[in-house]
């Protein structure tokens, strides 16, 4: 049962073939069996999940009208607040903190009757591309436990690939949903900025962060997208418009006559060979399905990474200032005679990891007087240029595509000591966040040289998320035909797996 899609599980629930309680328990059992090795979860809310599941079963039995995903279990990235449940953001500084309020994403999940199994591992405060920056130890890629699951949302994507949950929520600032999806062979979407409320999403880079749906199929992802998206009066940057019709688009999967643009600067030149191969094959499949493949150029994309690594650290240096040991989180050094200032300094030194400290200092510098124009100010201009590149490209085509990231999953520890090498993982995903448009990654095969998953990225103009889903669904269907079975059926079995 745990290997089914959420849609299949929902059908089973609707037909009475199983209960949410049984479904939830099955997933809890799987977590118990494999998470020792995978370490996708930081906290499993056994009691809470079973209570939620029981409540949905009761409502269903009483004949109440339920949402399409009611009773289906889900893994929640530990960067979103859930009332009364530990939220750490992968950091020591929030160890033990139980928020007194729900994020809007969680409110929406609860309203849809989705059962939240627990909180998943992540790079500390969403900073990283491998989940190695978690203060609680890395997550291991279910395809090969010696490898990274991507980041910052490695826990959520690994949970999907390990069948610990059919649905997951991630957040994406520079690729943190899409890149883990790519290296774990799952689907992940970053909606248009403002499409999903950020209220309760612990901020890393406020003008880039966005929560999004993750699952094993495009349709599951679409259903989850509609469950969490929508305007929120508590988030002044949320879009005040109806949620795009992504489920309908995922069901149609029609690309006939659609113009698909390959971005020259992100076409796979210099990427791992297998990544390039799978990407090109997918283009052929889409062409065979009736799409027109054209080439476009976005010349300012070469500055995207540099601009990102100025904007995101700058905003985070300010966003993370609140972690000062005064109102929540850990407190270190509060001995007799200690001052508030020394307690703050010591707590932040001990509570933050290396990458977080690096970015805070970088951001502090980029914003400081005398340097603002050269760094943060200039980066914000590059953002305008990237947005303009996208606008020009979208005049010529309906969606843009690229490989999601340059390589398949690398070994844990391989890039940990070279920050710049690590940052390059996001080279294809970052432009999407800079412009605030939507981006999806779906699996397009295994790289021949290492047998590891490769991701295909689809980008749609702002507020046109549904286009990603039609193209994604079309490609997924074509690949399914080619493979005969979903890609994840090829994943090596995890010891103890149900």
């Amino acid at each position: 049962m745990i290997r089914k899609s959420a849609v299949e599980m929902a059908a089973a629930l609707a037909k009475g073939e199983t209960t949410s309680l049984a479904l939830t328990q099955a997933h809890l059992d799987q977590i118990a069996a494999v998470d020792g090795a995978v370490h996708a979860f930081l906290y499993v809310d056994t009691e809470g999940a079973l209570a939620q599941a029981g409540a949905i079963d009761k409502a269903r039995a009483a004949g109440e009208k339920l949402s399409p995903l009611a009773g289906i279990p889900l893994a929640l990235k530990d960067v979103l607040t859930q009332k009364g449940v530990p939220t750490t953001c992968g950091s020591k500084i929030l160890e033990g903190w139980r928020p007194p309020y729900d994020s809007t994403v969680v409110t929406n999940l609860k309203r849809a009757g989705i059962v939240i199994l627990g909180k998943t591992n992540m790079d500390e405060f969403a900073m990283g591309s491998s989940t190695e920056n978690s203060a609680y130890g890395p997550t291991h890629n279910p395809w090969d436990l010696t490898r990274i699951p991507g980041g910052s949302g490695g826990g959520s994507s690994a949970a999907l690939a390990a069948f610990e949950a059919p649905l997951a929520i991630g957040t994406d600032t520079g690729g943190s949903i899409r890149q883990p999806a790519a290296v774990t062979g799952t689907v992940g979407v970053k909606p248009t900025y403002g499409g999903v409320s950020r209220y309760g999403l612990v901020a890393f880079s406020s003008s880039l962060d966005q929560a999004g749906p993750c699952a094993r199929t495009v349709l599951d992802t679409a259903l989850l997208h509609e469950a969490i998206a929508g305007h929120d009066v508590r988030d002044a940057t949320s879009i005040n418009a109806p949620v795009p019709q992504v489920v309908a688009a995922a069901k149609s999967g029609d690309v006939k006559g659609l113009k698909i643009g390959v971005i020259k600067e992100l076409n796979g030149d210099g990427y791992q060979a297998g990544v390039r191969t799978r990407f090109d094959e997918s283009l052929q499949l889409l062409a065979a399905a009736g799409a027109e493949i054209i080439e476009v150029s976005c010349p300012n994309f070469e500055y995207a990474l540099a601009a990102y690594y100025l904007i995101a650290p700058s905003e985070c240096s300010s966003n993370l200032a609140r972690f000062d040991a005064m109102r929540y989180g850990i407190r270190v050094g509060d001995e007799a005679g200690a001052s508030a200032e020394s307690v703050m300094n010591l707590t932040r030194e001990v509570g933050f990891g290396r990458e977080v400290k690096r970015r805070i200092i970088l951001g502090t510098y980029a914003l400081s007087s005398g340097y603002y124009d050269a760094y943060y100010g200039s980066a914000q201009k590059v953002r305008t240029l990237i947005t303009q590149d996208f606008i020009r490209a979208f005049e010529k085509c309906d969606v843009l595509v690229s490989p999601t990231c340059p390589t398949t999953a690398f070994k844990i520890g391989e890039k940990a000591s070279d920050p710049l090498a690590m940052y390059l993982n996001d080279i294809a995903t970052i432009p999407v966040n800079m412009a605030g448009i939507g981006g999806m990654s779906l699996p397009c095969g295994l790289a021949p040289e290492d047998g590891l998953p490769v991701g295909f990225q689809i980008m749609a103009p702002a507020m046109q998320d549904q286009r990603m889903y039609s193209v994604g669904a079309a490609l997924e269907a074509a690949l399914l035909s080619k493979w005969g079975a979903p890609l994840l059926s090829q994943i090596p079995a995890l010891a103890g797996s149900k």
Partner: protein
Amino acid sequence: MSPVTYDEVLAKYEPVLGLEVHVELNTKSKMFCGCTTEFGGAPNTQTCPVCLGMPGALPVVNEKAIESTILIGLALNCSIAPFSRFARKNYFYPDMPKNFQISQYDEPICVNGYVDVAIDTDEGPQTFRVEIERVHMEEDTGKSLHVGGATGRIHGADYSLLDYNRAGIPLVEIVTKIIPGTGKYAPEVAKAYVAELRDILRSLGVSDVRMEQGSLRCDANVSLRLIGVETLGTRSETKNVNSLRSVERAIRGEMIRHAELLNKGEKVKQETRHFQEDTGLTRSGRSKEQAEDYRYFQEPDLVPVAPDAAWIETLRAGLPEQPTLRRKRLQSEWSVPDKEMAAMINADALDIVEATVKLGADPAKARSWWLGEISRLANEREVALTDLPIAPVDVAAIVALIAEGELTDKLARQVIEGVVAGEGTPAQVIAARGFKVVNDDSALLAAIEVACAAQPETAQKVRDGHLPAAGALIGIVMKETKGQADAARVRELLLQHLGHTI
């Protein structure tokens, strides 16, 4: 070296001022969240994830705060920016939950205004124009209690306790351009400016503007330069200026302090100082030379403010009368001499007198009651005039009753006391205490005869032309009538009775 006198300061130096006034808006909810702004809540019961700066919380702008700020800008003759943004001012302090304050930086909502203030000079009343640099919005901080030290102040405290009920209260900051050319009237100009601001803000109804309560706060910047020199001197900023009088004293004090330093050849430190009510002097605070780099950048969680031009014009059309103009108009309508006008303004009694006049009372009478008897009671109880439990409608009623002859002045005073004591409206007090002016001449004559019979020698004295002696007899009549006779009428009748024609 003997201390410098004020005159000596002015002989050598020219003061330059800069005034920053913070106003607490009287919105019902906070600037960026829906927590109530009501006073006096139990600690940390008026907070939420947003104003506590919890992880994941987001601000959303209070619409009424925008409107109030625009009104303030319009009333101060500012231009309203067609496009303005919020910015983060980054620094660490335990009373600031996010360790940044959401404020406005290079794109404030109102710019380039002015206020004309009137001061009394040796040459008579003069008007001085204070130019306004900007008006912008920001949020207030929480309040700290420092525990363990001797004075409850931060020095020597062992630890502090934080209450965030006031964190996030909407503040408007009004910043003047530098104010040169005030000469010896610098303290008066500053005081008049703050007073005028207060009156304007009160007339707009956007704030309680009570300096003692902190809803109007003034920071005074002072520097001196040698007369005739262009270059500005180093300035000091004085905080904790909690009353109009303190504004005046603080500036005068700083001018003298700066001069004493400069005369000795020492430098003035650029720093923040705290005004001390008891001594009238300032105490050194945080040195501004080590001021933090605030690393301002646009607040990414909020979107720009672009007020609709038509809306701004509607607000402009609805602006209340300028306080200065209103004062001139009332003074002329009521024919009030300058000194009395000034007294009324100083006693903050203008609104209450106007309200009484609007209810039909004669202006002179209304003034005299409010500034006389009622002020006396207010002073006795050490409360403000407006805090006494007696309203314009009561005073108007009393004035009317006196005019109709239903009350004497003496009785009126007792009625006022009754109202203030909570016995009810004037009519209720009169009924309860049985006040009724004895108007009936025959009743008065009866009492007069009683009095003359009681003191025949005194009566004879009056008959003989010794009129002042009548006072004793009038006293007896008043006693007889329980003070409810009109003393003037009694005198008339008494004198007539004793053979004098009036």
